[in-house]
């Protein structure tokens, strides 16, 4: 699915993200070089605290206090105003969170319609679009439920529906199945996999190695750096179809180079 003829969607050059100052200074991201093509399904793995979520936040323009360069669609984000970044979040990026992050006082359809408000759509158009989106996730009859009346899997499907309602080119998912049982997890992964087939770029952070089988590229991170970057040839069809191709052990290669 990855389209190598068009310019890459995301290019990171020596990306560093610092937390704390002075003695407490600590780089959550410490020199990341990454190029993501349109239509890739990337799974980012790694131990807790290795900087996966921080990377995702940077990619999603939630955190723009970075060193190094981040180009989105060929434009460096360093020059984008806060409002422009908000518009990009609204129009190009869809977020899926581990903790779902639905607004608890809004019902399902209003939650799904939430991103459309900031696109300036009328209420009727919002509701229509959200309703269509919910139907495609087989949640048509749950439109007027409150989030706390849904199961975990349903809630996450609502959250994915919300992430997709804007037709974003890029979907950022931070452990989308982290709070779900394996059955629900696979349903969610099938949904994401479906989106991938439709040409969306998906970047997913996960702890679960089984889920990487859905991805076209698996990146493992360690201590704020990319440890391995594995391309897969074709889209995996079923679970267990692990066929790692050109595995590059970046950090080892670096160490060797240093020696």
């Amino acid at each position, binding site marked *: 699915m990855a389209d190598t003829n068009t310019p890459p969607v995301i290019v990171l050059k020596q990306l560093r993200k610092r937390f704390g100052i002075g003695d407490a200074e600590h780089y959550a991201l410490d020199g990341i070089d990454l190029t993501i093509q349109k239509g890739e399904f990337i799974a980012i793995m790694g131990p807790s605290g290795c900087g996966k979520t921080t990377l995702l936040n940077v990619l999603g323009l*939630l*955190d723009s206090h970075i060193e190094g360069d981040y180009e989105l669609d060929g434009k460096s984000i360093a020059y984008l105003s806060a*409002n422009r970044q*908000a518009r990009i*979040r609204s129009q190009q990026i869809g977020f899926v969170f581990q903790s779902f*992050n639905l607004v608890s006082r809004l019902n399902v359809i209003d939650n799904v319609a939430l*991103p459309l408000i*900031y696109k300036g759509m009328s*209420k009727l158009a919002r509701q229509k679009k959200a309703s269509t989106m919910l139907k495609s996730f087989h949640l048509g009859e749950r439109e007027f439920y409150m989030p706390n009346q849904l199961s975990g899997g349903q809630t996450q499907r609502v959250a994915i529906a919300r992430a997709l309602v804007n037709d974003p080119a890029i979907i950022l998912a931070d452990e989308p199945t982290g709070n779900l049982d394996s059955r629900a997890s696979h349903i969610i992964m099938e949904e994401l996999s479906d989106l991938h087939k439709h040409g969306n770029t998906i970047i997913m952070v996960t702890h679960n190695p089984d889920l990487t089988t859905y991805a076209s590229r698996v990146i493992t991170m360690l201590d704020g750096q990319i440890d391995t970057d594995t391309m897969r040839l074709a889209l995996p069809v079923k679970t267990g179809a692990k066929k790692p191709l050109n595995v590059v052990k970046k950090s080892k290669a670096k160490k060797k180079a240093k020696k």
Partner: protein
Amino acid sequence: MKILFANHIHIAQQSIASSRMRSILTMLGVTIGVASITTILALSAGASKIVVDQVDSLGGNIAVIRPGASSEGTLNGIAQLPIGQQYAASSLSDMDVAAIEKMEHVKAVAPLMILGGSVSGVSEGSPHTPILATTPNIEQISELEVSDGQFLDPSLSGSTAVIGPQLSIDLFGTDQSIGKTVTVKGQPFTIIGILKRTNTPINYNTVDFDNAVLIDLEDGRELIQGASQIQQINVQSESVEYLGGIITNINKALLKNHFGQADFTVLSGDEIAQPTSGIFTALAGVSVAIAAISLVVGGVGIMNIMLVSVAERTREIGIRKALGATNGNIIAQFLIESLALSIGGGIAGYILGYILAFTISTFLTFDPLFSWEIAIVAIVVSIVIGTLFGLYPAIRAARKDPISALRQYD
């Protein structure tokens, strides 16, 4: 933009409805402030209107000259408390009266000397009984009527007085007191007439005729050792069209008399009502100041609740920002919510204010006035309060870092 605005209003509705008790209590501060402003403004406007109506009913050919330079605006109204004027020597003199009387097209002139002092008949009168020393022309200019006896007449021998019906009852126990003797500042006066009840304690002569004793100007002078203390000169023109010219002439003549000092004011039409309602303006000013304090307290209440609301909805703010809300969107959302609180409180206050004004007016001789100015004042005050005290919480909400906001536990 319009859609966003509608949506913000919807969110504000939901948010206020979801914590109804809290919202009502928050609004209460603004409600009390706006209610007191509305009450005061409605009552003082009602009082001014009475005088305006009186002046209008007299045919609009009346001009009034008062001592002191003309004042404009509320602040001067407060500075010019009538109490102060009572002690100040009036700048109007008999010479001025004589000059006006000589002018063309002047139908009648009546100087008013309002004295303080004891008044007693069979029983003692109130120490605040107005003693009005004037000329018979006042009867014509102010359309006073005598219910019994006759009006003042300088040609009558001896000291004579005309008294108001209420004063007659207070002093003698009856409104049939003709021929009886009323003692004014220690001097005996024979009552020759009783005024018809006017029921207008507030009027442009600043004398409650129902409660006053009217004596001849000369007698009045004797009571204060021959000096003249003219507080007001009423001038009636032959008809309305001459009034403008007369006012110009009066200004010229009096300026000459006063060596070029404009220490007097010639008023006509609605202007006459203003200094009369000066005491109301002063009262209104003080009450509005007190109301302003309660509005500030109400505003602080709104700010407090909005800060709580922002803290409670930190996670929601994070979600909205992640989904594409700009800082401006977040500011607008919370600002509209605080505006909804303050405007809601303002509308409730406006209604409550009129209920209060009508309740109070049952003890007064005039009704509160409905006017769009008061409604606008109420709304503008609420909007200002809502914006002023909602802006800081809204900016605080917008400044929240989306990542840490999302991490916050719901």
